[in-house]
């Protein structure tokens, strides 16, 4: 594991605050922390938990972050903190009988959500299975490196996997710093300023949907998406965990996720599970839907189905 980058990973500061690694750590702290006097750093160090902040405090944090990002990326960011919409519980549908494994969703997600280009991070992984193969219990052994000249290929089918937004998320339970939690609209979010990079959540996730920034994330400046949400696609730090948030920055404003819009075959469906007229409810009621690893009782809000 590459060494920690104290300068850029505010999560590091949490050790003190949360009493995680208490005692022993305190001795180390005075050595490990940079002797910095700038106010921004120490404000970050003492930042409250996102859910405990009032709107004034949130505004302050956003102002500080926008300034930090501007210095670091030379880009003007617009960091939103849009709250869950009342009466909304997000659900996602994926039609396996249409998916052709073209990976346009993977890279539309990278673009929208500012994933690191190098070291490479993808929130969506497309798995390829041979038709007739027993597969639901076998996700880990699937081929994700297929690269033929054209897709779909005769005799194969494809299953994209990303965060399943569990109603009962194992990742949230194991987080020692409460840096990840489930919002009222069902989206499981991460506060990158609270994540200490212990990766317990990655071990707990049955779907392999979380990613770790082993290195400093890098994106070409002209490819940065400056329209971000605090709990979603804002730039991450080395040493923190990230994952799909159903494009929280888009969906909380009524827009479809980027992967839904790019899909050339229309295999991806999205909407409000509480709205009987939504396309996701139509899928659940009219199609044979199932969820990955149902036996684990994680209750994903990500439904797979076969339209034919």
């Amino acid at each position, binding site marked *: 594991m590459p060494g920690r980058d104290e300068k850029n990973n505010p999560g590091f500061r949490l050790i003190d605050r949360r009493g995680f690694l208490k005692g022993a750590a305190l001795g180390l702290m005075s050595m490990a922390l940079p002797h910095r006097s700038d106010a921004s750093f120490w404000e970050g160090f003492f930042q409250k938990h996102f859910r405990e902040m009032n709107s004034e405090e949130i505004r302050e944090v956003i102002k500080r972050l926008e300034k930090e990002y501007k210095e670091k990326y030379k880009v003007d960011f617009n960091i939103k903190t849009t709250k869950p*919409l*009342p*009466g*909304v*519980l997000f659900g996602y*549908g994926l039609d396996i009988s249409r998916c052709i*494994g*073209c*990976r*346009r969703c*993977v*890279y*539309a997600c*990278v*673009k929208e959500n500012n994933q690191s*280009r*190098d*070291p*490479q991070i*993808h929130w969506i992984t497309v798995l390829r299975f041979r038709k007739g193969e027993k597969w639901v219990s076998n996700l880990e052994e699937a081929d*994700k*490196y*297929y*690269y*033929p000249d*054209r*897709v*779909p290929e005769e005799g194969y089918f494809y299953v994209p996997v990303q965060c399943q937004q569990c109603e009962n998320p194992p990742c949230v339970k194991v987080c020692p710093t409460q840096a990840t939690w489930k919002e009222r609209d069902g989206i499981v979010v991460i506060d990158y300023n609270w994540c200490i990079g212990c990766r317990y959540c990655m071990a707990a996730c049955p779907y392999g949907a979380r990613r770790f920034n*082993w*290195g400093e994330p*890098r*994106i*070409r400046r002209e*490819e940065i998406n400056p329209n971000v949400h605090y709990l979603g696609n804002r730039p991450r730090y080395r040493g923190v965990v990230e994952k799909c948030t159903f494009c929280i920055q888009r969906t909380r404003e*009524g827009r*479809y996720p980027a992967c*839904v*819009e790019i899909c*050339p*075959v*229309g295999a991806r*469906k*999205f909407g*409000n*599970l*509480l*709205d*009987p*007229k*939504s*396309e996701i409810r*139509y899928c*659940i009621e*009219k*199609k*044979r*839907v199932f969820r990955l690893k*149902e036996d684990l009782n994680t*209750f994903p809000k990500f439904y797979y189905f076969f*339209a034919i």
Partner: protein
Amino acid sequence: MIKKIHITCLLFLLLATSLMILEGPVTAEDAGDELVEFPVPPPPFSEGIFPCSNCHAGMEVNTTKRELEFHQNIKLKHFDGWCFDCHNPDDRDTLRLASGKVISFKESEFLCGQCHGTIFRDWKAGVHGKRTGMWNGRKEYRLCVHCHWPHAPRFKPIKPLPPPVRPDDIKYRKLRPEEIPSNPLEEILRGEKR
């Protein structure tokens, strides 16, 4: 197995509905029976082919099934039929349903819907094909013909984007800004228009 799936789905819906009573649903706009017009992007005609009347106005109409000397790119590989099962012999700039009703190319989904009823129903609900825009508001549909060439409608295979880098091949190196790899998405989208 199937039964279990159904029970968990049901439980979940129950939970969802009880939440709804507490908070009241936010409804999508009525994409149902009443909505007759579906907003779509312009039909994907080849350049220069429309309006058809540029050539066909005043041209003799020949309804016999035959090898054409023009429109060589069209070889019917669909059901066993002919041009005028869909096109309107009296006005080439429009389509004609089996009922005799004339429709515009901007609503060709009604033509396809005559024979593909279940798919058309799914399409209206946003489940076959795709919609973009607002999940809780205005949506834009795609015509069937944006994805299916009506004369040979099987979906054509396309080029995939690259697989992820294998974990062993990821290097934690220092990069100059111009060395950062760019997203391959833009390049492939520039080459294709659906």
